[in-house]
């Protein structure tokens, strides 16, 4: 029984982190129809910034705030100064299919290289602000720490804020409208370009949060979030790439699948499970498990 509880708790913890990444990917997808592979680079960059802040101030919380804000700023800058000019230039010919992927991949490489230039490549670590030891429940220690709880709380709050933003505010409405139909949105007076940059900013902030919550368990080095990117992508695809709820739900499905497979079958199934889940979803319900629409726009 305790194995089951451990598996559930670990799934919740890792699912929460995957969710942050998949939210970031879905946000950019909805506003620009681009899978932002550079998100891994942005998130790790903001985490390095957070690392510097910790070195200077000793406070994880200040670093967290700075990371989230700089994530938003960096996201906005990337959209304005990088993605938009590229799309303006590259708008015809078969290269259109390759350009967004190549651009974001190229950006990922550049960001990681720049991190290597500035901070070097040796592993760094960020200490969690609260204990990472298992909590004692009813006399025995379970594999869930105060930090895991913190992560869950943060992700839930972020989800709540984003939902309120999207469903209940005018800005949120503008965001949704521009994503769904840019031409009509423009006609009704929405500044589509500004709104899109806003989408990138929110995604960047989400990535910044993901980085600061993920790294304390592991090491910080330029490629340390590549894996999270892949899992975030898989989670987003499972969820349907269309809604925030789908992003989070997809992340949970993925996390549970992986954790239960590794706990009950074999630890060797960590990566294969992720890939199999992805393939299954793409074959059976390509629109995603939680999408309302049947068709999947490419």
């Amino acid at each position, binding site marked *: 029984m305790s194995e089951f509880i451990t598996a559930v708790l670990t799934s919740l913890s890792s699912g929460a982190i995957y969710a942050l990444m998949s939210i970031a990917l879905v946000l950019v997808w909805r506003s620009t129809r681009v899978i932002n592979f550079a998100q891994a680079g942005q998130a790790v960059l903001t985490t390095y910034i957070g690392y510097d802040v910790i070195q200077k101030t000793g406070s994880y919380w200040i670093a967290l705030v700075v990371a989230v804000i700089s994530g938003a700023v960096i996201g906005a800058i990337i959209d304005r100064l990088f993605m938009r000019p590229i799309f303006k230039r590259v708008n015809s010919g078969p290269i259109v299919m390759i350009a967004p992927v190549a651009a974001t991949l190229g950006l990922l490489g550049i960001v990681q290289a720049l991190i290597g230039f500035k901070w070097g*490549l*040796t592993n760094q670590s960020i200490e969690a602000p609260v204990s*990472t*030891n*298992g909590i004692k429940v009813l006399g025995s*220690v379970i*594999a869930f720490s105060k930090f895991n709880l913190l992560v869950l709380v943060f992700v839930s709050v972020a989800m709540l804020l984003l939902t309120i933003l999207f469903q209940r505010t005018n800005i949120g409405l503008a965001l949704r409208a521009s994503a769904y139909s840019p031409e009509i949105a423009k006609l009704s007076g929405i500044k589509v370009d500004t709104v899109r940059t806003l989408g990138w900013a929110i995604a960047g902030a989400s990535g910044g949060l993901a980085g600061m919550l993920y790294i304390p368990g592991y*090491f910080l080095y330029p490629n340390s979030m590549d894996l999270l990117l892949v899992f975030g992508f898989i989670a987003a695809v499972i969820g349907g790439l269309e809604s925030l709820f789908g992003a989070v739900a997809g992340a949970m499905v993925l996390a549970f699948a992986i954790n239960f497979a590794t706990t009950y079958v074999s*630890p060797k199934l960590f990566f294969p499970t992720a890939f199999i889940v992805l393939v299954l979803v793409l074959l059976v319900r390509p629109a995603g498990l939680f999408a309302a629409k049947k068709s999947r726009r490419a």
Partner: protein
Amino acid sequence: MIRNKSMRRASLVSSIVVTGAMLLSTLPAQAATPGVTATEIKLGISSPLTGSAGLSYGKVPGAMKAYFNYINANGGVYGRKITLISRDDKYLPVRAATETTNLILKDNVFALVGALGTATHAKAYKAAALAANNVPDLFINTGFSGFTDQVKYPTTFMVLPTYAMEAKVIAKAIKDNFPGQPSVLIAQDDEFGTDGVAGFTAAGHKFSVPNVLYPQGYFSTPGRDAAVITSLRGLLAAAPGSKPVIVLFGTTDVTAALLKAATAAGVEKSFTWYAGSVGADANTLLALGVKSTTIDGVVSASFMPDAKDLTDPYVKQFVDINTKYNKGITFDNYVLAAMNSAMLTVQALRAAGKDLTREGVMTAIETKGAKFASAGLVPLGYSATSRIGYNGYWVSQLNAKGEGKPFGGKLVIYTTDSGAGAVEVSTFVRPTMPKNGIPTNS
């Protein structure tokens, strides 16, 4: 049909231009002995400067360079300055293969020194055709006993005691100090780990549960370290009241991960941790986030004096050199070992005589190497038939400050072989250090 003529022409022309440029920059024929001129000796090292192993071993090339620069400032080796060319292989066998090949082909080094890692160096040795090119492979930074095979590795000289030797000493230490306790071996699943397994078997040590063998890189995936700790707790449950001995035969990042996972689960004091020498550097463990309370009491083994022991003349001399020639780098066990190997290298080059050849330096180590001066507290085993360097260990225990002190308070040196020979207490006294740490042997 090739339709776009100008496109094709452009590609063809540029291909020819680039190829031509690369060909024209081909160097002329080389000197008789590669890497040696009247004024310079070029040595090469392929080791991890970045990546998980770079945290511990990244200092090695810089430390060796510092010692070589010290010697260069004091006349060099018969007037020749030593240049060490260092390439980063990230502890990956594939990269070690290409970088070592580059050292031989591109950099034209005279000899390799301090090559690091079992799997990495095994692959590199073969890929760079070191045997065919007769490149001396000196004082390699790995303890895999297979490297003493002179048929497979005719140009290789070890310096570290083999992992099999270390395992036998650990087995004896467990038998003497923790009798009756259950024990578990967690080891890297390649020749490094299996060499240790062989040593334990040769010593007749039986572990209580099957060995945990993990592939390199296994613990970089989240959750795996916690899983191992969970299984170790099963040991506790099976033998209540015991304090099992966990032998960690892996690299420092893995030792750190497991210690941290144990601390997170609150069970770190329920076990006696025996960290094999490869993964036991206290400074690195602390830097990787292991709590000092967890490190306190960890048992390990070493064959060198502790880097913090300034009463040792070798340590003091190396610290001096480090301060002057390796600015900004904190002196630790890795720097100590690296400078020690550099000192052995200089003695080897000197012993080969003024007419320096690859064959000559290898013969010199075979005939005179056992008497070289070094900081090691155990004897060197070089001879015409043996490529083994140090052949023993003393048992140490770490304290919360990260210092390694003799276990039980008294320094006892054990020597043994990689096979079925017994583990014996040794009365070895090491040679006096040459004045100012500058060898004058010939």
